[in-house]
């Protein structure tokens, strides 16, 4: 399988960028910080163009690469609707139990919103965050992305005999607390879960988590790319000391290093998507490396963006902080950088010394 996008995926990405440049301008992201309903028309557009059906009840061999193409564009547009949560994370997890989740995947395609619960208190890597015993789920879950915007929760739960179950339930019925998150366009919160799940299927946690982690990486590649483009555009036109600041090597080399970081992350994300599609190699290691590199790229690109722009990048009206906020928030969710690199290294060492 090709690592990069096919011709069809290039077209898909292009049309996603076109749709989102109109339907998800920076002004909408900014509005969504204060207006909890501002994302709904955008969500309807996303449903209407069919992106919610990318991971469908019928398997498509290209679905992961298609997902990556759209999520990358959504990241670049700091989409405020819960697209990554619903399709990338929840449907991305449910695809491993497609038969049992067929109805839920159909509902997601039709516009039901969902998210993936992946964090216990203090967790640096995604994993099981609930207990499953006697037909009931329980536990305190942290850092739930889009907590107030989604209907359904998908999660990994540890059962009483040491196994892992993929579960789903109606999140909006639970006791939820929304926090003041650094990126208010994807409000994050916590919940005390106590419920009987709708779907319960035994799974391998790494199998389930690979595609959500890859989708999270794709979003950050989009964020990083947008921050780099913004920086380059400014560096070409802003003049100081009688010339465009992009001519100075201090700026030029910094942005070249950001370009390397972006393409490094993009290559790893595409390679992980190809690996997850074919099942070749250690898919979870590839996913962890992609997310870690995407964290690195988005954080470096966001910092450089603010630095290159100077004071104006610290204002509310400038778009830089939209990217900074998304980079910070998404880099912390579904795997923090150092923990991901460590986990990938441990997977490598286990294979190398086996």
């Amino acid at each position, binding site marked *: 399988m090709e690592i990069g996008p096919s011709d069809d995926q290039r077209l898909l990405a292009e049309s996603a960028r076109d749709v989102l440049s109109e339907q998800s301008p920076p002004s909408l992201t900014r509005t969504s910080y204060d207006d909890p309903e501002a994302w709904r028309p955008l969500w309807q557009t996303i449903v209407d163009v069919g992106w919610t059906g990318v991971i469908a009840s019928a398997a498509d061999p290209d679905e992961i690469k298609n997902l990556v193409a759209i999520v990358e564009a959504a990241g670049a547009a700091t989409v405020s609707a819960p697209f990554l949560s619903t399709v990338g994370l929840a449907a991305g997890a449910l695809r491993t139990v497609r038969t049992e989740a067929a109805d839920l995947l159909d509902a997601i395609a039709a516009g039901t919103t969902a998210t993936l619960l992946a964090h216990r208190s203090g967790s640096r890597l995604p994993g099981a965050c609930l207990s499953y015993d006697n037909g009931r789920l329980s536990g305190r879950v942290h850092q739930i992305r889009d907590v107030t915007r989604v209907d359904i929760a998908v999660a990994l739960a540890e059962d009483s005999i040491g196994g892992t179950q993929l579960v789903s339930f109606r999140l909006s019925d639970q006791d939820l607390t929304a926090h003041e998150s650094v990126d208010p366009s994807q409000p994050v919160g916590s919940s005390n879960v106590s419920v009987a799940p709708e779907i319960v299927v035994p799974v391998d946690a790494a199998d389930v988590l690979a595609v959500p982690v890859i989708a999270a990486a794709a979003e950050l590649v989009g964020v990083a790319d947008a921050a780099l483009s913004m920086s380059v555009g400014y560096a070409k036109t802003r003049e100081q000391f009688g010339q465009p600041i992009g001519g100075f090597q201090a700026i030029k080399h910094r*942005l070249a290093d950001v370009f390397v970081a972006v393409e490094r992350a993009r290559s790893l994300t595409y390679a992980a998507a190809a690996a997850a599609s074919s099942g070749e190699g250690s898919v979870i290691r590839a996913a962890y490396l992609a997310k870690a590199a995407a964290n690195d790229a988005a954080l470096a690109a966001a910092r450089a963006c603010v630095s290159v722009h100077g004071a104006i990048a610290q204002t509310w009206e400038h778009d830089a902080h939209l990217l900074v906020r998304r980079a910070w928030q998404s880099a912390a969710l579904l795997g923090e950088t150092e923990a991901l690199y460590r*986990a*990938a*290294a441990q997977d490598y060492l286990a294979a190398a010394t086996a």
Partner: protein
Amino acid sequence: MTPAECAAEFAEWLEAFLPADYYTAKYAEYRWDIGLRRAFQEAAYEAGWLQPAWTREHGGRELGPAETMAVRLESAVRSAPKLPNIQGPGVVAPGLRHFGTPEQVDRLLVPLLRGHEWWALGMSEPGAGSDFGSLRTRAERNGDTYVVTGQKIWTTQAHESKWATLYCRTDPSVPKHKGISCLILDMESPGVTVRPIRMATISDETFCEVFLDEVEIPVSSLLGQEGQGWSVAMSSLEHERDMIWIMNWVEIERGLQAVARHSADLDDGLLAALGRRLADAAALRATGFRGLEDTLANRAAPQATILKLLGSEALQHTWELAATAAGAEAIVDPGLSFERHDALAATIYGGTSDVQRNIIGERVLGLPRV
């Protein structure tokens, strides 16, 4: 044949060629076995594995880009012997094929590819390193010959080479990139003095100074047109960059294995550092493949410009990590010291990291030149 089938056929050939204890004896010993490396080049030429994309007579089997890359990666993965005069087949040969006259190709290419005649790159000068366009070695035309006077430096293996591609200024009246020509220099010509330079560490890629005192070179030894030297140099180096990332990648993989030997001693910080280098190696390979896919589809591949910079920087970081993982033992491990010295060269040859950043900044991002 598919790329995988080509790689498998190459692997079978390589296994038959290599001594039985190649993988069990220390790689470090065979690394310096110049006889084995010469024999490998000759055998690879004969079998059509040296430049797989080229015709049979030029050491290939007319494979496509995907098949060629599969063979190169296989060769890297299997630690095939290093070509002893890598700039010959890697840099000079593509330039010679592209720009050479039929007479030049007939006379020079096969001995080069077989490794019978070694080549040096007469590029850098005391005043022209990264700023290659400011070179001052002067070639004045006198009838059917150029008379060349000047000095080259950091000229790898000049003392062992029969030939050099000698970049000279043939027209001082035009802006600097335009007045350069590439001449094929017979290193045995009168007026050529070669002085090897002692290297900081053990090396079989020794630098030399080359002094040129009214050296006569026939006009028929021009490679490309007069004044076309800049294009000859850039085109030749571009071929080299296609191969450098694969060389970097395999050295990184070897470095990662060196780190893995200390797996019991790696704390959290070192584990994370190892993860970063695993990401570099995987990204290098995936970016190389993306570049290949774009080339096959006739698309621009701006991401391929990161290969040299990412590969060479990652190589240094990997061997530094290997040294950190080894702890104080690292300083009494001559093999490791050699790898660290060798990795230091990677961010210099083929265009320094800072020149690569200029290339990315200006050609890819479109930032202004100053």
